[in-house]
Protein backbone atom coordinates (compact mmCIF):
# COMPACT_ATOMS: atom_id res chain seq x y z
CA UNK A 1 0.00 0.00 0.00
CA UNK A 2 1.41 3.39 -0.99
CA UNK A 3 0.40 6.58 0.73
CA UNK A 4 0.46 9.90 -1.02
CA UNK A 5 -0.29 13.28 0.35
CA UNK A 6 -1.76 15.96 -1.86
CA UNK A 7 -1.45 19.56 -0.83
CA UNK A 8 -4.70 21.39 -1.25
CA UNK A 9 -5.73 24.67 0.31
CA UNK A 10 -2.79 24.37 2.71
CA UNK A 11 -4.28 21.11 3.98
CA UNK A 12 -2.89 17.66 3.57
CA UNK A 13 -5.28 15.13 2.16
CA UNK A 14 -4.66 11.46 2.67
CA UNK A 15 -5.46 9.39 -0.38
CA UNK A 16 -4.36 5.79 -0.19
CA UNK A 17 -3.68 3.69 -3.24
CA UNK A 18 -4.37 -0.03 -3.13
CA UNK A 19 -1.48 -2.43 -3.67
CA UNK A 20 -2.44 -3.19 -7.26
CA UNK A 21 -3.01 0.53 -7.95
CA UNK A 22 -6.44 -0.30 -9.36
CA UNK A 23 -8.23 2.04 -7.01
CA UNK A 24 -7.73 4.76 -4.42
CA UNK A 25 -9.25 4.92 -0.98
CA UNK A 26 -10.04 7.48 1.71
CA UNK A 27 -11.21 6.83 5.25
CA UNK A 28 -13.59 9.37 6.75
CA UNK A 29 -13.90 9.29 10.53
CA UNK A 30 -16.28 10.67 13.14
CA UNK A 31 -15.66 9.61 16.73
CA UNK A 32 -15.59 5.85 16.89
CA UNK A 33 -16.94 5.30 13.37
CA UNK A 34 -15.42 5.43 9.93
CA UNK A 35 -16.57 5.18 6.33
CA UNK A 36 -14.43 3.94 3.46
CA UNK A 37 -14.73 5.61 0.03
CA UNK A 38 -12.92 4.22 -2.97
CA UNK A 39 -12.64 5.23 -6.59
CA UNK A 40 -11.12 4.07 -9.85
CA UNK A 41 -10.04 7.66 -10.45
CA UNK A 42 -7.82 9.28 -7.84
CA UNK A 43 -8.32 12.79 -9.18
CA UNK A 44 -12.05 12.36 -8.73
CA UNK A 45 -11.62 11.07 -5.20
CA UNK A 46 -9.62 14.18 -4.43
CA UNK A 47 -12.76 16.26 -5.08
CA UNK A 48 -14.59 14.23 -2.43
CA UNK A 49 -11.67 14.33 -0.02
CA UNK A 50 -11.13 18.08 -0.11
CA UNK A 51 -14.63 18.68 1.30
CA UNK A 52 -13.94 16.55 4.36
CA UNK A 53 -10.16 16.67 4.65
CA UNK A 54 -10.02 17.35 8.44
CA UNK A 55 -12.03 14.14 8.95
CA UNK A 56 -9.71 11.90 6.95
CA UNK A 57 -7.40 9.38 8.47
CA UNK A 58 -4.69 7.28 6.93
CA UNK A 59 -5.59 4.16 8.83
CA UNK A 60 -8.84 3.64 10.74
CA UNK A 61 -7.59 1.93 13.89
CA UNK A 62 -10.06 1.07 16.63
CA UNK A 63 -13.06 2.53 14.83
CA UNK A 64 -16.10 0.70 13.49
CA UNK A 65 -16.78 0.63 9.75
CA UNK A 66 -20.29 1.86 8.98
CA UNK A 67 -20.13 1.95 5.21
CA UNK A 68 -18.10 1.34 2.08
CA UNK A 69 -18.94 3.65 -0.80
CA UNK A 70 -17.49 4.23 -4.25
CA UNK A 71 -17.43 6.97 -6.83
CA UNK A 72 -16.31 5.72 -10.20
CA UNK A 73 -15.91 7.17 -13.64
CA UNK A 74 -17.61 5.05 -16.28
CA UNK A 75 -18.44 5.71 -19.92
CA UNK A 76 -18.41 9.46 -19.64
CA UNK A 77 -20.52 9.53 -16.49
CA UNK A 78 -20.04 9.10 -12.77
CA UNK A 79 -21.38 6.30 -10.59
CA UNK A 80 -21.94 6.73 -6.87
CA UNK A 81 -23.01 3.84 -4.70
CA UNK A 82 -22.45 1.60 -1.74
CA UNK A 83 -21.07 -1.92 -1.89
CA UNK A 84 -23.87 -4.45 -2.52
CA UNK A 85 -26.48 -1.66 -2.87
CA UNK A 86 -28.01 0.26 -5.72
CA UNK A 87 -26.00 2.99 -7.42
CA UNK A 88 -26.77 6.37 -8.95
CA UNK A 89 -25.40 7.72 -12.20
CA UNK A 90 -24.54 11.41 -12.69
CA UNK A 91 -23.53 13.31 -15.80
CA UNK A 92 -21.66 16.00 -13.87
CA UNK A 93 -18.79 15.32 -11.47
CA UNK A 94 -19.95 18.14 -9.17
CA UNK A 95 -23.37 16.52 -8.74
CA UNK A 96 -21.81 13.13 -8.03
CA UNK A 97 -19.43 14.58 -5.44
CA UNK A 98 -22.22 16.55 -3.74
CA UNK A 99 -24.48 13.51 -3.59
CA UNK A 100 -21.75 11.35 -2.08
CA UNK A 101 -20.88 14.11 0.44
CA UNK A 102 -24.49 14.25 1.66
CA UNK A 103 -24.70 10.46 1.75
CA UNK A 104 -21.60 10.24 3.96
CA UNK A 105 -22.98 12.84 6.39
CA UNK A 106 -26.34 11.07 6.52
CA UNK A 107 -24.64 7.76 7.26
CA UNK A 108 -22.81 9.29 10.23
CA UNK A 109 -26.08 10.86 11.43
CA UNK A 110 -27.93 7.55 11.15
CA UNK A 111 -25.15 5.71 12.95
CA UNK A 112 -25.35 8.02 15.98
CA UNK A 113 -29.06 8.49 16.65
CA UNK A 114 -28.13 9.00 20.30
CA UNK A 115 -26.87 12.48 19.36
CA UNK A 116 -28.87 15.60 18.51
CA UNK A 117 -27.83 16.63 14.99
CA UNK A 118 -28.39 20.29 14.17
CA UNK A 119 -27.91 22.21 10.92
CA UNK A 120 -25.45 24.65 12.42
CA UNK A 121 -21.96 26.00 12.39
CA UNK A 122 -20.01 25.55 15.60
CA UNK A 123 -16.85 27.06 17.05
CA UNK A 124 -15.30 27.16 20.48
CA UNK A 125 -14.51 30.33 22.36
CA UNK A 126 -12.55 29.94 25.58
CA UNK A 127 -13.10 26.20 25.41
CA UNK A 128 -16.89 26.50 25.16
CA UNK A 129 -19.02 25.99 22.08
CA UNK A 130 -21.06 28.57 20.23
CA UNK A 131 -23.75 27.17 17.97
CA UNK A 132 -24.75 29.17 14.87
CA UNK A 133 -28.06 27.69 13.74
CA UNK A 134 -29.60 28.49 10.35
CA UNK A 135 -30.83 26.93 7.14
CA UNK A 136 -28.62 26.99 4.05
CA UNK A 137 -27.82 30.48 2.77
CA UNK A 138 -28.02 32.38 6.05
CA UNK A 139 -24.28 32.76 6.50
CA UNK A 140 -23.25 29.97 8.85
CA UNK A 141 -19.99 29.25 7.05
CA UNK A 142 -19.15 32.91 6.60
CA UNK A 143 -19.72 33.64 10.27
CA UNK A 144 -17.71 30.59 11.30
CA UNK A 145 -14.87 31.91 9.14
CA UNK A 146 -15.03 35.25 10.94
CA UNK A 147 -14.91 33.54 14.35
CA UNK A 148 -11.82 31.61 13.27
CA UNK A 149 -10.15 34.95 12.52
CA UNK A 150 -10.80 35.84 16.17
CA UNK A 151 -8.89 32.77 17.32
CA UNK A 152 -11.87 30.49 17.91
CA UNK A 153 -11.43 26.78 17.27
CA UNK A 154 -13.32 25.09 14.50
CA UNK A 155 -15.90 22.38 15.17
CA UNK A 156 -18.07 22.49 12.03
CA UNK A 157 -19.53 24.87 9.48
CA UNK A 158 -22.66 22.91 8.64
CA UNK A 159 -23.45 19.96 10.89
CA UNK A 160 -23.24 20.08 14.68
CA UNK A 161 -23.67 16.86 16.68
CA UNK A 162 -24.64 17.50 20.32
CA UNK A 163 -24.24 14.96 23.09
CA UNK A 164 -27.50 15.08 25.11
CA UNK A 165 -25.84 13.73 28.25
CA UNK A 166 -22.97 16.21 28.61
CA UNK A 167 -24.55 18.88 26.35
CA UNK A 168 -21.23 19.12 24.59
CA UNK A 169 -20.80 19.82 20.88
CA UNK A 170 -18.65 17.26 19.09
CA UNK A 171 -16.29 18.22 16.27
CA UNK A 172 -17.67 17.41 12.82
CA UNK A 173 -15.04 19.28 10.83
CA UNK A 174 -16.10 19.16 7.22
CA UNK A 175 -13.83 21.50 5.27
CA UNK A 176 -15.01 25.07 5.89
CA UNK A 177 -15.93 27.34 2.99
CA UNK A 178 -17.21 30.87 3.05
CA UNK A 179 -18.85 33.19 0.55
CA UNK A 180 -16.81 36.16 -0.58
CA UNK A 181 -18.63 38.94 -2.38
CA UNK A 182 -17.25 42.03 -4.06
CA UNK A 183 -20.44 43.83 -3.03
CA UNK A 184 -20.89 45.16 0.48
CA UNK A 185 -24.43 43.80 0.72
CA UNK A 186 -26.04 40.95 -1.14
CA UNK A 187 -29.80 40.28 -1.00
CA UNK A 188 -30.66 37.02 0.75
CA UNK A 189 -32.29 35.58 -2.39
CA UNK A 190 -29.04 36.10 -4.32
CA UNK A 191 -26.68 34.89 -1.61
CA UNK A 192 -26.38 31.46 -3.24
CA UNK A 193 -24.84 33.14 -6.31
CA UNK A 194 -21.89 34.44 -4.31
CA UNK A 195 -18.95 32.07 -4.83
CA UNK A 196 -17.56 30.12 -1.87
CA UNK A 197 -13.86 29.97 -1.20
CA UNK A 198 -12.08 27.59 1.17
CA UNK A 199 -11.24 28.94 4.60
CA UNK A 200 -7.57 28.49 5.45
CA UNK A 201 -7.54 26.15 8.40
CA UNK A 202 -4.47 25.22 10.41
CA UNK A 203 -4.65 21.75 12.00
CA UNK A 204 -4.25 23.44 15.39
CA UNK A 205 -7.42 25.46 14.76
CA UNK A 206 -9.61 22.36 14.77
CA UNK A 207 -11.29 21.50 18.06
CA UNK A 208 -10.27 18.01 19.08
CA UNK A 209 -12.90 17.05 21.60
CA UNK A 210 -16.40 17.87 22.74
CA UNK A 211 -16.91 21.39 23.99
CA UNK A 212 -19.61 22.34 26.51
CA UNK A 213 -22.31 24.43 24.87
CA UNK A 214 -22.28 28.03 26.05
CA UNK A 215 -24.64 29.88 23.73
CA UNK A 216 -26.93 29.23 20.77
CA UNK A 217 -27.52 31.86 18.08
CA UNK A 218 -30.27 31.61 15.47
CA UNK A 219 -29.04 33.51 12.44
CA UNK A 220 -31.31 35.95 10.59
CA UNK A 221 -29.33 37.51 7.76
CA UNK A 222 -30.85 40.65 6.29
CA UNK A 223 -28.66 42.88 4.16
CA UNK A 224 -31.06 45.81 4.64
CA UNK A 225 -30.33 46.12 8.35
CA UNK A 226 -28.47 49.24 9.41
CA UNK A 227 -27.35 47.74 12.70
CA UNK A 228 -27.03 44.22 14.02
CA UNK A 229 -29.06 43.13 17.00
CA UNK A 230 -29.01 40.23 19.41
CA UNK A 231 -32.44 39.48 20.86
CA UNK A 232 -33.11 36.83 23.50
CA UNK A 233 -34.92 33.70 22.44
CA UNK A 234 -37.22 32.11 25.02
CA UNK A 235 -36.66 28.44 25.96
CA UNK A 236 -39.85 27.26 24.23
CA UNK A 237 -39.01 29.19 21.05
CA UNK A 238 -35.50 27.73 21.23
CA UNK A 239 -36.88 24.20 21.22
CA UNK A 240 -38.94 24.91 18.09
CA UNK A 241 -36.07 26.64 16.29
CA UNK A 242 -33.70 23.77 17.07
CA UNK A 243 -36.28 21.20 15.95
CA UNK A 244 -36.79 23.11 12.67
CA UNK A 245 -33.05 22.93 12.00
CA UNK A 246 -32.58 19.35 13.07
CA UNK A 247 -31.39 16.45 10.91
CA UNK A 248 -33.10 13.95 13.17
CA UNK A 249 -35.49 11.59 11.42
CA UNK A 250 -39.19 11.59 12.29
CA UNK A 251 -38.94 8.30 14.12
CA UNK A 252 -36.62 9.84 16.70
CA UNK A 253 -38.42 13.19 16.91
CA UNK A 254 -40.29 12.56 20.18
CA UNK A 255 -37.09 11.78 22.03
CA UNK A 256 -35.41 14.77 20.44
CA UNK A 257 -38.10 17.24 21.55
CA UNK A 258 -37.66 15.98 25.12
CA UNK A 259 -33.89 16.36 24.85
CA UNK A 260 -34.20 19.86 23.41
CA UNK A 261 -36.47 20.85 26.29
CA UNK A 262 -33.80 19.64 28.69
CA UNK A 263 -31.21 21.65 26.74
CA UNK A 264 -33.42 24.75 26.86
CA UNK A 265 -33.24 24.68 30.67
CA UNK A 266 -29.45 24.85 30.55
CA UNK A 267 -28.22 26.88 27.60
CA UNK A 268 -29.24 30.43 26.64
CA UNK A 269 -30.29 31.20 23.08
CA UNK A 270 -30.64 34.39 21.07
CA UNK A 271 -31.61 35.61 17.63
CA UNK A 272 -28.77 37.26 15.77
CA UNK A 273 -30.18 39.71 13.22
CA UNK A 274 -27.28 40.86 11.11
CA UNK A 275 -26.18 42.33 7.81
CA UNK A 276 -22.42 41.90 7.92
CA UNK A 277 -20.64 38.86 9.34
CA UNK A 278 -17.39 40.61 10.44
CA UNK A 279 -19.20 43.09 12.67
CA UNK A 280 -21.57 40.43 14.02
CA UNK A 281 -18.65 38.17 14.97
CA UNK A 282 -16.88 41.07 16.70
CA UNK A 283 -20.00 42.00 18.65
CA UNK A 284 -20.47 38.45 19.85
CA UNK A 285 -16.82 38.03 20.82
CA UNK A 286 -16.90 41.29 22.77
CA UNK A 287 -20.17 40.35 24.49
CA UNK A 288 -18.91 36.91 25.47
CA UNK A 289 -15.57 38.25 26.64
CA UNK A 290 -17.34 40.80 28.84
CA UNK A 291 -19.71 38.34 30.47
CA UNK A 292 -18.69 35.35 32.55
CA UNK A 293 -19.68 31.90 31.37
CA UNK A 294 -22.80 30.57 33.09
CA UNK A 295 -20.95 27.33 33.81
Amino acid at each position, binding site marked *: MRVERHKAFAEKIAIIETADASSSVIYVTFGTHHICVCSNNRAMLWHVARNISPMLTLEPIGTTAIGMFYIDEQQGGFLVGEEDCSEQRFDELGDAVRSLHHTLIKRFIDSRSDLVWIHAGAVTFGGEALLLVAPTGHGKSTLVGEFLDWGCSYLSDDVAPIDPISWGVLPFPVSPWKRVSSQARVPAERLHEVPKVPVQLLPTAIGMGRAPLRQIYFLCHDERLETNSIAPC*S*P*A*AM*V*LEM*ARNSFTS*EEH*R*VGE*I*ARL*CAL*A*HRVPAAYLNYAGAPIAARQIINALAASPSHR
Partner: protein
Amino acid sequence: MISGDSVPIQVSGVLDYRLAEEMVVYDPVRSQAASLNGTARALWDLCDGSRSVHMLCEEIVKRFDVSHEEASSQVQSAVEQLCELGLLCV
Protein backbone atom coordinates in the same frame (compact mmCIF):
# COMPACT_ATOMS: atom_id res chain seq x y z
CA MET B 1 -65.22 28.60 12.92
CA ILE B 2 -64.74 28.77 16.69
CA SER B 3 -67.70 30.23 18.57
CA GLY B 4 -68.13 31.15 22.22
CA ASP B 5 -69.98 27.90 22.78
CA SER B 6 -67.28 25.74 21.23
CA VAL B 7 -65.61 23.38 23.69
CA PRO B 8 -61.95 22.88 22.81
CA ILE B 9 -60.10 19.81 24.03
CA GLN B 10 -56.49 18.70 23.72
CA VAL B 11 -56.02 16.16 20.94
CA SER B 12 -55.25 12.73 22.34
CA GLY B 13 -51.58 11.78 22.20
CA VAL B 14 -50.25 15.35 22.10
CA LEU B 15 -47.23 15.68 24.39
CA ASP B 16 -46.51 18.76 26.46
CA TYR B 17 -43.27 19.90 28.06
CA ARG B 18 -43.15 22.62 30.70
CA LEU B 19 -40.31 25.14 30.42
CA ALA B 20 -40.50 27.57 33.35
CA GLU B 21 -43.49 29.80 32.46
CA GLU B 22 -43.73 28.45 28.93
CA MET B 23 -44.66 25.18 27.31
CA VAL B 24 -43.87 23.21 24.17
CA VAL B 25 -46.65 21.04 22.79
CA TYR B 26 -45.90 18.38 20.21
CA ASP B 27 -48.10 16.01 18.24
CA PRO B 28 -45.95 13.04 17.24
CA VAL B 29 -48.56 11.75 14.78
CA ARG B 30 -48.72 14.95 12.71
CA SER B 31 -45.24 16.12 13.69
CA GLN B 32 -46.66 19.51 14.66
CA ALA B 33 -45.24 21.58 17.49
CA ALA B 34 -46.01 24.92 19.09
CA SER B 35 -44.46 27.06 21.78
CA LEU B 36 -46.85 28.57 24.31
CA ASN B 37 -46.24 31.60 26.49
CA GLY B 38 -47.55 31.83 30.05
CA THR B 39 -51.12 32.78 29.11
CA ALA B 40 -51.35 30.23 26.31
CA ARG B 41 -49.97 27.59 28.65
CA ALA B 42 -52.70 28.32 31.18
CA LEU B 43 -55.25 28.14 28.38
CA TRP B 44 -53.84 24.80 27.22
CA ASP B 45 -54.16 23.35 30.73
CA LEU B 46 -57.80 24.53 30.86
CA CYS B 47 -58.70 22.87 27.55
CA ASP B 48 -59.75 19.56 29.08
CA GLY B 49 -63.12 19.41 27.34
CA SER B 50 -65.10 20.76 30.28
CA ARG B 51 -65.10 24.48 29.36
CA SER B 52 -66.49 26.46 26.45
CA VAL B 53 -64.51 29.34 24.87
CA HIS B 54 -66.71 31.72 26.96
CA MET B 55 -65.74 29.90 30.15
CA LEU B 56 -62.08 29.86 29.14
CA CYS B 57 -62.19 33.67 28.74
CA GLU B 58 -63.62 34.04 32.23
CA GLU B 59 -60.83 31.87 33.67
CA ILE B 60 -58.15 33.89 31.86
CA VAL B 61 -59.65 37.16 33.16
CA LYS B 62 -59.57 35.74 36.71
CA ARG B 63 -55.98 34.53 36.46
CA PHE B 64 -54.33 37.32 34.48
CA ASP B 65 -54.51 41.08 34.55
CA VAL B 66 -56.48 41.44 31.30
CA SER B 67 -59.85 42.87 30.39
CA HIS B 68 -62.66 40.60 29.23
CA GLU B 69 -62.33 42.07 25.75
CA GLU B 70 -58.60 41.34 25.58
CA ALA B 71 -59.05 37.86 26.99
CA SER B 72 -61.80 37.09 24.49
CA SER B 73 -59.66 38.16 21.55
CA GLN B 74 -56.57 36.26 22.81
CA VAL B 75 -58.44 33.07 23.66
CA GLN B 76 -60.28 33.04 20.34
CA SER B 77 -57.04 33.56 18.43
CA ALA B 78 -55.05 30.98 20.43
CA VAL B 79 -57.76 28.33 20.18
CA GLU B 80 -58.05 28.89 16.43
CA GLN B 81 -54.27 28.59 15.96
CA LEU B 82 -54.00 25.45 18.07
CA CYS B 83 -56.93 23.92 16.19
CA GLU B 84 -55.27 24.76 12.87
CA LEU B 85 -52.13 22.99 14.05
CA GLY B 86 -54.22 19.98 15.04
CA LEU B 87 -53.20 20.26 18.69
CA LEU B 88 -56.72 21.15 19.92
CA CYS B 89 -60.07 20.02 18.53
CA VAL B 90 -63.61 21.28 19.14
